[in-house]
């Protein structure tokens, strides 16, 4: 089978959009944090928490959307810890972020072991099912890819639009962007940089957790250890790739996911059979690094990213 044939398959693009969905949520969350001036390396762990919290809620009998809400709230709780430590206390965002990732991951695994002490295979839940949007889904190739997905995927795309509007069209978005560019100016307007940044980190972390929940509640239907598997770190690269803009970050996520879907399919071709499968698995990570190198030339980093703001200090 030719690569071109793969690219024209509807199932290929359906898979690509599905793979992109958790990345869109989490990268959008990271973007919100970074636009306010806070690098959130807790993303990997917060995705693990979201994946577990959402899944457990449904497993214990909660509704699917209730599970998404629980995932979001649990992500926000870790975001609050991250925000308080890095914003008013100004601790190293690298160290706190990695600490949050470790704390969130180990706490999740601890709770999993306590909740399900003697399971060999993780129990399944009734996950989100694809929701076909009639007429639109009849468009060849892109129809099924875009309009025969689970509701969470639609939510991811809606959020990209919503975040763009809020960031660029509302006073709230202006204040958030200003907190990441020129915090002193925000303070001069009588707004609190600390409050804006903590809120941004909380909301962003909530999105990351929903990204994790997508894995257990839409892409798969159970919770595995190691299931986030570096997706959080890739999202950090995606934000740089998208030069801190929601639309471009979405594009990056879809391109990345398309590449990921492609490597899985090429593995099954005669050409792919001769190449060790690890090469295919490496490709997404190497691609992310290359993307960072290419985009770094014209990246517009938020000026106050990783710069703590201490009132009264000049």
């Amino acid at each position, binding site marked *: 089978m030719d690569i071109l044939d793969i690219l024209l398959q509807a199932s290929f693009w359906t898979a690509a959009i599905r793979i992109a969905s958790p990345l869109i949520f989490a990268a959008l969350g990271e973007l919100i944090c970074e636009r306010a001036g806070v690098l959130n*390396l807790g993303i990997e762990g917060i995705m693990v928490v979201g994946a577990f919290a959402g899944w457990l809620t449904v497993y214990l009998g909660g509704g699917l959307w209730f599970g998404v809400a629980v995932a979001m709230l649990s992500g926000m709780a870790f975001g609050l*810890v991250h925000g308080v*430590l890095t914003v*008013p*206390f*100004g*601790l*190293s965002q*690298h*160290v*706190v972020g*990695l*600490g*949050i990732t*470790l*704390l969130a*991951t*180990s*706490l999740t*695994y*601890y709770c999993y*072991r*306590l909740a399900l002490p003697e399971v060999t295979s993780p129990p399944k839940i009734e996950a989100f099912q694809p929701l076909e949007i009639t007429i639109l889904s009849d468009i060849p190739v892109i129809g099924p890819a875009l309009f025969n997905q689970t509701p969470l995927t639609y939510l991811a795309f809606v959020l990209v639009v919503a975040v763009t509007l809020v960031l660029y069209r509302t006073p709230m978005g202006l204040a958030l962007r200003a907190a990441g560019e020129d915090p002193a100016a925000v303070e001069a307007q009588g707004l609190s940089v*600390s409050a804006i940044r903590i809120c941004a980190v909380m909301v962003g972390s909530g999105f990351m957790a929903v990204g994790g929940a997508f894995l257990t509640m839409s892409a798969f239907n159970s919770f595995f250890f190691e299931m986030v598997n*570096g997706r959080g*770190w*890739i999202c*950090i*690269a995606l934000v*740089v790739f998208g030069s801190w803009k929601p639309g471009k970050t979405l594009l990056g996520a879809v391109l990345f996911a398309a590449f990921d879907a492609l490597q899985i399919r090429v593995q099954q071709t005669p050409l792919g059979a001769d190449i*060790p499968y*690890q*090469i295919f*698995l*490496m490709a997404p*990570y*190497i691609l*992310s*690094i290359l993307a*960072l*190198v290419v985009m*770094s*030339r014209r990246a517009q980093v938020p000026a106050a990213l990783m710069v703590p703001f*201490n*009132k*009264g*200090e000049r």
Partner: protein
Amino acid sequence: MRLEPIANPTWTRSLGLPAVALFATVVVASLLAMIAGAQPFSVLGLIVKGAFGSKFATLETLNRATPLIFTGLAVAVAFRAKLWNIGAEAQLYMGAVFTVVLGTGALAWPAFALLPTIAVAAMLAGAVVLLVPTFLKTRFSVDEVVTTLLLNFVVLLWVSMLLEGSLKDPMGLGWPKSARLIAEARLPRIAEGLRLHWGFGLALISALVVWVIQRRSTLGYEMRAVGLNPAAARFAGIPVNATLIKTALLSGGLAALAGFSEVAGLKGNLTLDISPGFGYTGIIVAMLALLNPLGVVVAALFVAGIFVGADSMSRAAGVPTYLADIMLALALLAMVLAIMLTKFRVRRD
């Protein structure tokens, strides 16, 4: 609220706050143990007993601390120059790979020549892995946090490929593992009948060497200057990029020694699970040690003790071993906060 620097922190403040941080960690861990249905005090006692309660347990802790001293030093050296090396895991595996490549018969030399050769080759291999992100940082200003993190995944997959390919043990019954090292390539035990290898000795020597470099050499001074303020360092005539590259060589080499010591000292061959995240745990070790090389030894013993102790506690009390990771994460976060509060006062306004 705002933060106000304290000119001369009192002794009670400097020692009391970190003590409070550790106490808080223990309290939260006890609560978590209670949720798991165990007696909190017995759980803590079991952890201490499991880590240092017998000669066997203590030696196990020292063995576990060995790779953590190396990765802790690697992180401490890099972070001091604000080179955010999160890739010690990858560098460790590079060191391990080259130990196997050279130590399984490719060089039939006597031990006194072979072991240093392998150690140097391993260090170079680890250094090269860190040079790539460092070069991308100095040349293209690509953030090294993300690149070192992503390289961890790449290197681990590469090792997996080698273990199923050219490095696979033909006698391994199909398991992805390497052949065993020849006797000359094994690090000897420190004393006859003692289950502790010279990797631990090498780790202590490395800590001392790094301490001397940081305190007594020009490079140490330059690394500190670059870490404190790159712009000022450049203005003072310090070659910032060259310093970062030298830092990367040292840091990557130290992390690779962890792989060398695990393969040549402890395991004798390479599998995909020689490191349960020693590279990442090295970050905690370095932070708890406040990036001080001698402190890294103490912190590594503490961290290794928690891991080894938690393993035996888990068997006895039925509390998941993940309690150890939670305690370390809490200790890390509480400690960085406590250290900051020893230097700054919180003021309301």
